[in-house]
């Protein structure tokens, strides 16, 4: 398959905007004094995502491969564990300005390292500069 930087940019911009909107619901929940319903909120948040995901999937196909089921389960578990462990870290006395930069900045560093060393991706000087500035930006957003 031909890799197209224009398509990549368009899809990443869609992912960037919609992924940014995704967690903003939690902020609205807090502002409306509904934080007590956070676990239930997550259930309906995932329900909304699952219904949209199912509709998008059924438009193209009606069968799933075993590897897709297994990887979907592993990724769902990683997502939930990431959020749960970060929450547990905060409730066990780790300050937010330590926990958030470590989990976000650290994950960016580890995934970039995995891309380069495990999947043999080549990142040029512009890419390295972009990754470093991106990690700095996320750390600054996490600690202020």
């Amino acid at each position, binding site marked *: 398959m031909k890799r197209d930087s224009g398509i990549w940019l368009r899809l990443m911009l869609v992912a960037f905007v919609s992924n940014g909107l995704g967690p903003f619901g939690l902020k609205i929940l807090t502002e409306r004094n509904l934080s007590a319903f956070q676990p239930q909120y997550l*259930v309906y948040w995932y329900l909304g995502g699952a219904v949209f995901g199912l509709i998008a999937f059924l438009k193209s196909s009606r069968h799933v491969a075993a590897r897709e089921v297994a990887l979907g389960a592993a990724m769902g578990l990683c997502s939930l564990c990431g959020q749960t462990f970060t929450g547990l870290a905060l409730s066990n006395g780790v300050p937010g300005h330590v926990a958030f930069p470590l989990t976000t900045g650290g994950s960016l560093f580890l995934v970039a390292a995995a891309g380069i060393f495990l999947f043999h991706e080549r990142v040029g000087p512009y890419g390295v500069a972009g990754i470093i500035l991106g990690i700095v930006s996320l750390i600054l957003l996490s600690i202020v």
Partner: protein
Amino acid sequence: MKSGYLYTLLGLLSFSSLGVLHKVADVKQCRPAAVNALIYGWSLLFSVLTVMLIKDSTPSAPASVISIAVPFGVAASIAILAFQAGIRHGDIATSWLAINLSAGIPTIASILIYNEPLSFQKTIALLLIPVSMTLLFIDKRHADRRREQSEPNAVASGRVRR
């Protein structure tokens, strides 16, 4: 406190594994729509189990909570679908950063909607996001050009493409 840092480390490993698994799904030629539907399907099951077994509660919630949760869940699902489709055209090393930089959007929304103060550090962080995205795009274009130039040579010399 020690257990807190252990949880931080586990959180870091969980989020990092998620990024790596997105790439594994791409390498294994999983379809983005199937992966997205299954991530949310499984996560829904896990979150229901968490509410019922760990929080000892029920999934029922007021309509005001549901009306906030569902559209934002749809937005997040669109993000994963676009991301999984996008890494077919790019590298996980740079794509994972692109999607994580979206942390700036709730910050901007909080400033615009809830009049949260904009500190000097936040301003710098928000300004760095488009700079970083531009650098990633330039790197991507350079990588595509390198690939286009090397592929005819590789075919001519009989080398196998990775």
